[in-house]
């Protein structure tokens, strides 16, 4: 009997061995790994957190003590936010905030729609010059914006569009096209060709195939690129500086924040609140739609 018991317990023992060693390994490496991860996470969050705390502290407190002293002597105020939105402070962020929205919406919708059409043509139609055209558009992704800005500005001057939103809508839309076409083309190729063939056999034209068959399947891809483009346009400074640098009428919020940082670099009560007003929209969009954003990133760089 005593000899039989080890025999019956053998199978569980074997199954136990790896899991036991796994547990041992976890005990060895896990606390250090967790600690390292926590240290990194804190390091990454602290800078933003410090400015966020500061944006709610009174001006005098920000300028004479570090934000960490808030915890021993907490005083909260919304004055800084009133300051950046108020007309009398000269910052007037509300109007730049509106400008950013006005710039972003068409700059996302136009390239996404145009790229969807072009990607459809590349993915599902045959025409002479298809491969070479696709290669050229793919290669255009590497053109740095800097190369295009001055001649584009000259064109805008010639057709008298300077100082209007049109310069930003047109340039942001154009710059987005190569990546958008490439990404959407990749997504479209993944749709089984049987679906398209079946629709064609049923007598559907290109327009109805596009809207009835492809569009519903493409929604996640369009969302992924849309978020990508939205964050890019909202956060852009260079294009805005070149085309809207002159007047406050069309300048986005990033431009006003950059100006504030340049001309009133020590006005931390305005800078801290201004920075948070400018990041609230992209951070919200990002947190709500992170899933799509990550998918877009992965499609862009892992597949290559």
């Amino acid at each position, binding site marked *: 009997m005593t000899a039989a018991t080890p025999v019956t317990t053998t199978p569980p023992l074997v199954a136990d061995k790896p899991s036991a060693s796994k547990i041992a390994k976890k005990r060895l490496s896990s606390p250090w790994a967790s600690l390292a*991860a926590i240290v990194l996470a804190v390091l990454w969050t602290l800078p933003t957190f410090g400015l966020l705390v500061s944006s709610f502290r009174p001006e005098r407190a920000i300028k004479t003590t*570090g934000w960490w002293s808030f915890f021993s002597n907490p005083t909260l105020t919304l004055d800084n936010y009133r300051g950046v939105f108020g007309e009398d402070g000269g910052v007037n962020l509300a109007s730049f905030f509106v400008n950013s929205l006005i710039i972003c919406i068409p700059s996302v919708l136009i390239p996404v729609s145009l790229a969807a059409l072009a990607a459809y043509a590349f993915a599902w139609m045959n025409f002479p010059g298809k491969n070479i*055209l696709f290669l050229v*558009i793919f290669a255009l992704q590497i053109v740095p914006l*800097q190369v295009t800005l001055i001649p584009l500005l000259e064109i805008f001057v010639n057709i008298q569009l300077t100082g*209007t939103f049109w310069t930003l809508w047109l340039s942001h839309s154009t710059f987005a096209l190569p990546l958008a076409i490439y990404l959407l083309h990749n997504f479209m190729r993944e749709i089984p060709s049987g679906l398209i063939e079946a629709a064609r056999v049923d007598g559907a034209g290109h327009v109805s195939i596009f809207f009835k068959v492809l569009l519903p399947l493409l929604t996640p891809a369009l969302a992924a690129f849309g978020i990508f483009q939205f964050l890019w346009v909202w*956060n852009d400074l260079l294009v805005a500086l070149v085309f809207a640098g002159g007047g406050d009428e069309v300048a986005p919020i990033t431009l006003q*924040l950059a100006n504030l940082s340049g001309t009133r670099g020590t006005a931390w009560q305005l800078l801290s609140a201004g920075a948070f007003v400018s990041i609230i929209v992209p951070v919200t969009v990002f947190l709500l739609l992170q899933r799509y954003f990550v998918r877009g990133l992965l499609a862009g760089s892992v597949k290559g």
Partner: protein
Amino acid sequence: MFNTASTTPEKILQMLSALLLFAAVMGIILFIAGRFGGKKGDRVVAYLYLLPVLLLLTVGLVYPGLRTIYQSFFDAAGDAFIGFDNYGTIFSDPDQLTVLRNTVFWVVLTPFVATAIGLVYAILIDKSRFESFAKTLIFLPMSISFVAAGVIWKFMYEYRPDQGNVKQIGLINQLIVWFGGKPVQLLIESPLNSFLLIVVMIWIQAGFAMTILSAAIKAIPDDIIEAARLDGVNAWTMFRRITLPSVQPTVVVVLTTIGIGTLKVFDIVRTMTGGNFNTSVVANEFYRQTFNADNQGLGAALATLLFVLVIPIVWYNIRSLRQSEAS
């Protein structure tokens, strides 16, 4: 409709009419496309779908690109042909050499450090209970503009003179003081300031590296990891022999993507130091020469240089992708 809109209702009206105009153009394209059927119609419809895209790309990217390269061979005012003189200036003028040196620091340091941190973090939090929350924390800087990131870090680096009652308000200088040091003018001391600006870019890009690499790590087949575990492999060997070789192609893509992004960095430098105190980089110098120094020729040459520098990185990227697909 094509004038400057100055009040909010005017702006909204202009945006709506622009969108309506765009919808009308799309409608016309789709309407014409709908008239064509069959295999022969395919060609017409394809070119029709591509027409707006090709028009925008030709006028907005191809022509301006070629024009800038052409302009880079002309003098400051853009009138007299001076051959390669602008490029000569970039590679001989002491100020321009500092710009080049800084750009090399940026492009070498940022991709490697950001990728290393992203990779380590992705491994550390892989399959942990708080994985998605931990990822969001590191990833969040990606959604912030470079301008806002610049403001956030300028506050970290803020300096107050070392006098009796004056307290530091920047965290880094406070740490220096707590450890018994004297506060440093972090953004003015060169070359320290350039490295401190690079930290900001690393802070932003590590999240990108982490996200992509985390997906690559998750794609490693479970049975390989399980087999290694059964062999009693320790954490370091696991990383060296299994994780790293499996994600290597992705590491290359991440490195080159961050490298290209870093080459064009402009906003951070402009927001934090304005390119002063020896911190300028090529992309910032392009802007300064074109708009502040009124040297169109040199500006165009700097933009062209950016273009030329991107090409080998992209070429390497495509080549290594081909290799990994072939194997």
